[in-house]
């Protein structure tokens, strides 16, 4: 092989090493040419400088930052793919807590009402009015005057024949 052919082969293998793993024979060729060929070393040094210069320029810096719309599209895509939680699902999960909390509040109110008033029915009317004469001597009679008003009293007159 001529020196030009060796240089071209050397260049192809170096560039190919960026995409695939070189075989042992190819690696041995690159190493051998790096020691023997002045042209190959110069090309390699020039190529290294080119790469270094390209890295220093940082071409990614020229890429425009994503807009909020881009982020929204990305988020939507990730959610559809299942990589992110769906906020709608979270909202649905929170709904059962509301009726449960309302039921709990109602039940606590019932318990407090029972504690305060007891379980008996307080609307029951008060004890019926009592006005009576239980016993009298034989021959005696009685009259009971009651006007039927709660604030009124009772007059009991006992008439005696004795």
């Amino acid at each position, binding site marked *: 092989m001529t020196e030009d052919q060796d240089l071209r082969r050397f260049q192809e293998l170096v560039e190919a090493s960026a995409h695939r793993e070189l075989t042992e024979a190819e690696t041995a060729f690159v190493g051998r040419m790096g020691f023997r060929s002045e042209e190959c070393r110069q090309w390699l040094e020039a190529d290294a400088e080119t790469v270094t210069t390209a890295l220093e320029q940082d071409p990614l810096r020229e890429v425009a930052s994503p807009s909020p719309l881009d982020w929204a599209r990305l988020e939507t895509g990730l959610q559809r793919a299942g990589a992110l939680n769906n906020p709608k699902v979270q909202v649905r999960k929170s709904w*059962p807590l509301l009726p*449960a909390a309302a*039921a*709990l509040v109602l*039940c*606590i109110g*019932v*318990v407090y009402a*029972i*504690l305060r008033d*007891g*379980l*008996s029915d307080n609307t029951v009317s008060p*004890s019926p*009015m*009592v*006005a*009576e*004469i*239980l*016993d*009298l*001597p034989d021959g*005696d009679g*009685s009259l009971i*005057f*009651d006007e039927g008003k*709660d604030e*009124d*009293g*009772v*007059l*009991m*007159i*006992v*008439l*005696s024949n*004795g």
Partner: protein
Amino acid sequence: MKTCLLYASVLLSVIAMVDLAVADVAPAAAMTRSIPVATTFDVVHTVATDAGGISDKLKKYGKYLRRAGSDHWKLESRKQTKPVPGTPKTVALPGKLGKAIISLDAKGVATVKILDNGGKSLGSYRSSRFPLVIANQRLRINGKPYVLILDRPKKK
């Protein structure tokens, strides 16, 4: 499913709370109902007179006294007694008429049993309303009608 379990757990906890509350409250309420409460009564002794109308101290009972056989009444004496349900109180009647045994039941109904000097019953009178005005023709002081009034004292 999770919602059902949540409701079931809430319901069970509430039932447990109600059960505890009833267990605490029911005996207390039963005790409150069964504990007898002493009540203070005014025992008013009145005697008919020939004139003078109804004294100012008896104005409250005027409409009863006028029906009891006279338009003229005076206050003989007034005393307070405080019977406890189950424990009657005995009050001596003026003019050596005898005595009155005043008792009270748990519902606040008072019973007045009047005995003459010989211990003979002149009747038992039971009322839940006050004043309870008792006019018994057998009870006379110096020939004048006597009336016993059982009343609750004025609320201060």
